[in-house]
């Protein structure tokens, strides 16, 4: 504009003022005020979010040295180039502009971009959501502002409210579990502690193996990817971050939150998977801030050594489950756990599917060595561990009545709590030294841990645990990986020597199962087999004709001297008021190539059988029952080892005895006999007079039942060969063919030796056996043909 025009305007204004100066009283003042286009923008410095953001997660981490901060998400604030003085700050609670941010860092920090852009600032949030302490709020609004003073007396303050939020929390379940384990945890954690949570589902194991079901192959080389995220349809760390950035309903709905890191809370095996992702995965991108583990077997757990052995050792694996016995036997433990819904392997799969994951957790496993040796823990991640000390998992379904009594034979029927793994205290050094699954020495990250009186399955639903996790996730002093590494490697773990397998019963002292370290012998179970053994209702059943039952005793024993057989005495016993020894085996156990100190498995066969009163007997003892049929409980012991009582009981059914009738095949009563006769085979069981391998004479007779004096129709003596494993007193089955009933010339029912003198006769089977009572069968009706 030319000077002349400016001058003209000035004179116009001056004239106007002059004219107005003649007025008095009320005045009016006219101003022009501009709402400037400052172009204030608040963007994600990382560029992950395109466009404006609405908030930022407090996902930085205090560094190892004073003042050091490992940055998380940052924002860039910028305005259009504008004349005037710029001051960056925030609006206080009263809406007034305050230059800068509090020096204590409570609301974060401003800094100038490295490029020195004059119209921009970098905003970094505080290192924790609330530096004054745990805060249950889900978000905290902050009004970042810039003040532009274009001239004295005229300034514009432009502000934008951003939300400070806590980083997303990704929950990683353990093996034999799934996301539903976190249902209550999530609800409480979100409502009470103000976190947004996401659940990883690695229950499918290998991603390539198909959609998730329970129990995958568990190999962390691949399964860690479920923690990492980025798998369609599943949620992991990267997916949680995306949900935050997109303003997903699961995050802060409609609010685009800048975030760089998530926190991980992991249960049991999930902690190992999480550590593998953070510490071993080649594609780890540094997007985890903290990891809290709950009951994680950082150094393994002996129970998996047992389970892996049970699933891979043919001796152990071949042992059949029988009624309640597998509940207390190691060999059947996984199956029982499955029955009660605590182990699920892939649909259509087998227990073998879970072996790789179990093997990872074995004490001394190769993968744990990779994790824990060298340089464990990530320097830019903070860790904490929650350690459970309740070594009894509560299976109480009905108050005072423990329906899982069979879980542990040494506990009473009315005992309120039962150990899920009754041998656990023995493995772990005593009461309160495990969470019933993982020893405390394995759960502990010594640089930051706390003990809680909960068992392995109870962490998630504990409000105490939830509070601890919440506090740690808001604790800027939670130790970083370097501190954990130093403490972890300095920790002396005597139980670390408890490598190998253990199969033990439990010993009850007071009200607790106790023990210490691995025992020298590990009794597994008794399993029955035999040529005459059937089954009924899932129970092995020895019929009235008897026969030798083989009781296979499986277990393991520690090698005292490599290559040297170890002589031990095993006793097959029957459980009653006073236990009865049935069979005593003095065995030479061959350790094969198993080195000294390790456990080798053995399998021995003991014998038992029955008599005609349903008594149970073995070569070295018997117990009578004169009331008829009986279910007997059988176990075994090893002499000289005080660490256990005996193996779990296995049950076997001996139904009531009756001598079989003389029965003509293919006919039903009354049997019709002709002149040509009807041959049949007489079957029964006879009291053995001698041991196996001999022959024995059997005198089996046919009688016609009369009111006063019975008529002997046939008297036959034959010889049977006794089984090699038979022993005196046992009832041995016989089966003799060629018996004959026919119509004689007088039209009467007759046998090989005599006539009944009747056209219809009641015939029975009678056995004469020296050394025992002579039983007889019930009658069968026999008629002659017309």
């Amino acid at each position, binding site marked *: 504009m030319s000077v002349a025009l400016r001058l003209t305007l000035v004179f116009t204004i001056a004239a106007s*003022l002059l004219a107005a100066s003649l007025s008095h*009283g009320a005045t009016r*003042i*006219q*101003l*022009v005020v501009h709402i400037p286009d400052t172009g204030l923008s608040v963007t994600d410095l990382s560029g992950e979010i395109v466009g404006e953001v609405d908030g930022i997660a407090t996902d930085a981490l205090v560094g190892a040295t004073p003042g050091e901060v490992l940055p998380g998400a940052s924002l860039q604030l910028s305005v259009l180039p504008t004349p005037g003085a710029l001051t960056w700050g925030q609006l206080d609670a009263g809406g007034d502009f305050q230059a800068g941010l509090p020096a204590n860092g409570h609301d974060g920090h401003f800094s100038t971009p490295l490029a020195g852009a004059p119209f921009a600032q970098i905003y970094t949030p505080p290192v924790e959501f609330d530096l004054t302490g745990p805060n249950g709020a889900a978000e905290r609004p902050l009004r970042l502002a810039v003040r532009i003073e274009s001239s004295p007396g*005229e300034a514009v303050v432009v*502000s934008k409210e951003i939300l400070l939020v806590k980083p997303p929390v990704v929950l990683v379940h353990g093996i034999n579990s799934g996301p539903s384990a976190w249902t209550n945890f999530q609800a409480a954690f979100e409502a009470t502690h103000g976190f947004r949570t996401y659940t990883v589902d690695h229950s499918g194991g290998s991603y390539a193996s198909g959609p998730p079901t329970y129990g995958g192959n568990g190999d962390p080389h691949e399964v860690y990817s479920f923690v990492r995220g980025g798998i369609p349809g599943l949620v992991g760390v990267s997916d949680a971050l995306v949900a935050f950035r997109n303003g997903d309903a699961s995050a802060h709905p409609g609010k685009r939150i800048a975030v760089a890191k998530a926190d991980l809370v992991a249960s049991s095996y999930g902690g190992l998977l999480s550590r593998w992702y953070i510490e071993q995965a080649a594609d780890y991108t540094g997007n985890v801030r903290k990891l809290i583990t709950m009951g994680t077997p950082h150094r393994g757990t002996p129970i998996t050594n047992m389970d892996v052995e049970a699933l891979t050792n043919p001796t152990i694996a071949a042992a059949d489950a029988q009624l309640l016995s597998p509940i207390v036997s190691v060999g059947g433990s996984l199956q029982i756990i499955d029955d009660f819904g605590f182990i699920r392997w892939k649909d259509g799969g087998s227990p073998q599917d879970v072996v790789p994951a179990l093997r990872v957790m074995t004490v001394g496993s190769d993968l744990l060595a990779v994790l824990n040796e060298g340089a464990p823990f990530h320097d830019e991640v903070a860790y904490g561990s929650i350690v459970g000390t309740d070594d009894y998992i509560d299976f109480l379904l009905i108050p005072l009545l423990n329906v899982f009594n069979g879980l542990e034979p040494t506990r009473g029927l009315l005992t309120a709590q039962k150990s899920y793994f009754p041998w656990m205290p023995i493995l772990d050094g005593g009461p309160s030294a495990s969470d019933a699954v993982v020893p405390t020495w394995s759960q502990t990250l010594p640089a930051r841990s706390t003990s809680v009186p909960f068992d392995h399955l109870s962490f998630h639903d504990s409000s105490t645990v939830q509070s601890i996790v919440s506090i740690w996730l808001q604790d800027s002093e939670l130790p970083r990986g370097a501190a954990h590494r130093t403490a972890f490697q300095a920790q002396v773990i005597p139980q670390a020597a408890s490598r190998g397998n253990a199969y033990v019963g439990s010993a009850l002292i007071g009200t607790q199962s106790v023990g210490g370290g691995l025992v020298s012998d590990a009794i597994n179970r008794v399993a029955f087999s035999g040529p005459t053994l059937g089954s009924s209702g899932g129970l092995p059943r020895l019929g009235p004709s008897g026969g030798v039952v083989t009781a296979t005793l499986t277990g393991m024993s520690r090698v005292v001297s490599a290559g040297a057989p170890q002589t031990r005495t095993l006793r097959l016993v029957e459980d009653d008021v006073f236990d009865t020894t049935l069979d005593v085996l003095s065995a030479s156990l061959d350790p094969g190539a198993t080195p000294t100190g390790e456990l080798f498995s053995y399998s021995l066969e003991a014998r038992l059988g029955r008599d005609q009163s349903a008594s149970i007997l073995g070569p070295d003892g018997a117990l009578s029952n004169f009331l008829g049929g009986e279910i007997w409980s059988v176990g075994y012991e090893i002499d000289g080892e005080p660490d256990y009582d005996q193996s779990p009981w296995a049950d076997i059914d001996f139904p009531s005895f009756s001598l079989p009738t003389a029965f003509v095949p293919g006919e039903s009563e009354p049997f019709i006999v002709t002149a040509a006769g009807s041959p049949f085979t007489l079957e029964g069981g006879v009291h053995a007079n001698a041991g196996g391998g001999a022959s024995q004479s059997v005198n089996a007779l046919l009688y016609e039942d009369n009111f006063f004096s019975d008529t002997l129709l046939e008297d036959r003596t034959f010889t049977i060969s006794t089984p090699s494993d038979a022993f005196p007193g046992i009832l041995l089955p016989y089966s003799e063919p060629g018996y004959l009933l026919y119509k004689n010339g007088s039209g009467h029912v007759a046998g090989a030796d005599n006539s009944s003198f009747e056209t219809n006769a009641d015939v029975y089977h009678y056995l004469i056996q020296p050394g025992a009572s002579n039983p007889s069968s019930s009658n069968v009706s026999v008629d002659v043909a017309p």
Partner: protein
Amino acid sequence: MQADPEESTSMIRPALLAVLFLGLLCSEAAFSYQVEAGSSSNEVFILLVNDQPSAPFHSISLTHAAPGIVGTATASIVPVQVEAESSDLAALQFDVLPGVALGATGQLIITLAGEAAGKAIETQVTVPLEVVESAPAAQGVVGTGVPAPDPGGVDSDGDGVTDALEVAFGSNPNDPESFPGQPFAVPALGWVGAVLLALFALAWGWVLAHAPQQGSRA
């Protein structure tokens, strides 16, 4: 020796321009609004111009901080929303306490707050008040008539200010280059500025009178 008139004027012109510059400078420094003691219903009219290219300025509030010489002050006009690249009228009405001394001063701070494009924007205007015996009825960026809200009013030149408001604020409603308050918002001249401008006018006239005529030396 007689001075060369051309040489004289060539020396004087730069000096006069400097005087003009100082006059303009002083005129801004002397900015103040005059009010009378005991006056009521004084009104600050603010033409609120939204420079945002696409975002309306909305959720508007008008607050103030009054000096001691002011009795009551009330927001009398607050627009609901000012569209992008448009304008509207806001106003604050205030009374001056009776009995305040002549020459008393104070700052009336007016804050206009609202939101645009997801940001809170707060513009603060400081109005220096001075109590005089007789104050002009209309001060500042004035035109013809008293400004009044003009919703839906015609904007002939399309500059974002309706014709009625342009007239009230003294700009040309048919010229998009003419905008209220431009080129500079000099609503009043202080006495120093007035004296300097008067000196400039007198001197400029003398220069024009003594300037050599075109072709006189030929």
